[in-house]
């Protein structure tokens, strides 16, 4: 089983790379391939089970869009074929229509999803999050300069229980189509949410156990309890 981590030398902010380190602990036999920005992505020619892209700086977003643009059709094909994508933090914006700067200028995205985002660089949004995914609750953190707009009512990732959706007025977080999961949640999402990690392993038909199961579930339960208490 091959898992491709896209551009880890750049897209590695906020501890998100540990999602992959943890997944490696869960899937010790899987092959994790790190593709640098100046390399041809492996998903173009190879059979990849999962593709991961983590949060990045604003300048890097432009580089990543430029790099992935020639492969837009291939990415859409992989999404249609149920390949698992996990896209965290502002990496989700790469797949939208555009990113708008404060001065109104726009950076064209891949346009795979009918959403767009707006930057507000002097006002960083920070919040805690609980959201419903199938039969489980997902906990997490948001820390971002942007808000996303557009209609994700038919392809959202999570129903918000606490916190915000793709913007402050939205109660629907992220984007999901087949096995493509894009979320503004940052940090060690898979470690914070062992039950969700279990679902990802199932989605990949992976024969693996979640690592440090007892320990991560104890921390998850405590956080869920704590975040539910927040106003």
């Amino acid at each position, binding site marked *: 089983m091959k898992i491709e981590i896209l551009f880890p*030398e*750049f897209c*590695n*902010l*906020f*501890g*998100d*790379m*540990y999602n992959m*380190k*943890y997944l490696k*602990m869960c899937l010790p036999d899987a092959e994790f391939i790190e593709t640098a*920005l*100046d390399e041809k992505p492996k998903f173009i020619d190879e059979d990849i089970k999962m593709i991961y892209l983590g949060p990045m*700086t*604003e*300048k890097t977003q432009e*580089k990543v869009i430029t790099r992935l643009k020639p492969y837009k059709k291939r990415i859409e094909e992989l999404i249609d074929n149920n390949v698992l994508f996990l896209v965290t933090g502002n990496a989700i914006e790469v797949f939208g229509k555009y990113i708008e700067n404060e001065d109104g200028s726009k950076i064209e995205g891949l346009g795979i999803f009918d959403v767009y985002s707006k930057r507000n*660089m*002097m006002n*960083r949004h*920070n919040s*805690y999050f609980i959201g419903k995914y199938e039969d489980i609750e997902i906990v997490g*953190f948001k*820390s971002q*300069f942007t808000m996303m707009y557009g209609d994700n009512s038919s392809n959202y990732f999570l129903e918000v229980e606490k916190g915000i959706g793709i913007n402050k007025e939205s109660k629907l977080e992220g984007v999901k189509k087949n096995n493509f999961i894009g979320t503004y949640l*940052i*940090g*060690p999402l898979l*470690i914070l949410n062992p039950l969700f990690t279990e679902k990802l392993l199932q989605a990949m038909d992976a024969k693996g156990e979640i690592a*440090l199961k007892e*320990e*991560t579930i*104890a*921390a998850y339960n*405590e*956080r869920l309890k*704590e*975040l539910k*208490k*927040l*106003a």
Partner: protein
Amino acid sequence: MKKGIKFYIALWGAKIGTVILKLFKRNATFFPGKFAIKICPDFIGKINKPKTIVAVTGTNGKTTVCNMIEDILKDNNYIFIDNKYGSNIDAGVATTLLSGVNFWGKCKRDLAILEVDERSAPKIYPYMTPTYLVCTNLFRDSLMRNAHTEFISEILTKYIPKDTTLILNGDDLIASNIAPENKRIYFGIDRLETDSEKCENIARDIIVCPKCNSKLVYDYVRYNHIGKAHCPNCDFRSPDIDYLVTNLDLQNMKMHIKNNNEEETYDLISDNIINIYNILTVITVLKQLNLTNIQINESLKKQKIVDTRYSEEIVNGKKIITHLSKGMNPIACSRVFDYVRKYKGNKAVILLLDDLHEEANGSENTAWQYDTDYEFLNDDSIKQLIIAGVRYLDDYVRVRIAGVDDKKIVHERNELSAVEKLNLNNVETIFILHDLYSMELKEAIKAKVELMVKNLEEK
């Protein structure tokens, strides 16, 4: 600059407010400035300022650097204003400048030493041109506030006044490249035996050339992005250093600094690389202020790193070290973890890293733990790791992911109860690593450890 009635209302109101606050024994280090800026938004611009202003900014070390500059200047009978006891944002800076003028706004001091928060640049530098602006380093910091180094370096570049001379860490490829048009002076440390060709840290924020996007070649790495690098395809490279530590003699606790072909010797008051950088920064600033080698060194010898940041004592032959390890600041914690693992002998480590300031809001964003090199705590010389506090379950998962043997770990919610499980056999040193907002707790834990060590002898 014409001051106008708003300025004088702000000045007099803030001056009177300061007197009233002091009468009630309240800290008058923030609110007078806040009031002044509220009444007169460009108060910092309009107030008369000292002829020479040294502003100190950067992710880590700015408080230590300011404290040391101030102590050495005082020891040499300099008179100046500073925000040592105030905040480092616009209100704190305004309060400090306010203390430097009389009731009619006339400046009473010629020199100001100001610690300035990087994020506050847009609210301060449009109104104030520092003579010197020191940037100690730029690293990943609180992700909730500072996001990432690109964001902070862009803010600094945008707002630093063109006439300010920069004093920059030349070993830091991010800090050394802020405001490229400004006049600059670099400090740095020549290659050390401990430097490596490979980076073993999680975070490394400059990997490609900012000019041509080629992958940078690191001649050596000290930690994270500190080191020396060059671009193989263009002229981008680490700068030539003006104040260069040519010989770091940790055995005799001395360092030689070369500037303009002259070499001077200084005493070291710490063997920790982050403090050596801090001392070097201080010396560079003081040399720019025309202090001599003797003036600086004689005062430097009297300095010590403040107890709130580092303390050590020996009780019954065992060393107890407290070390500030700022929560939510991945690089500061990683440097401390690295120091601990490399400290001679066997040790036990007590981790009290909860950010109680953040916890007051009901929880803590713990993503920073995964930018922090907890892997350094997975070391044979660390015989026991005690994890305690609100986030003990998160810390426990983190150190397990770092590969620390479960048998070495004690993890409990209650700090004092967890410390009772401290195993003093086979350890020479006990490290208590604590956050900035855990001072009282640190003292309680330290007292408990001291007692346990004393009781060990009686047993």
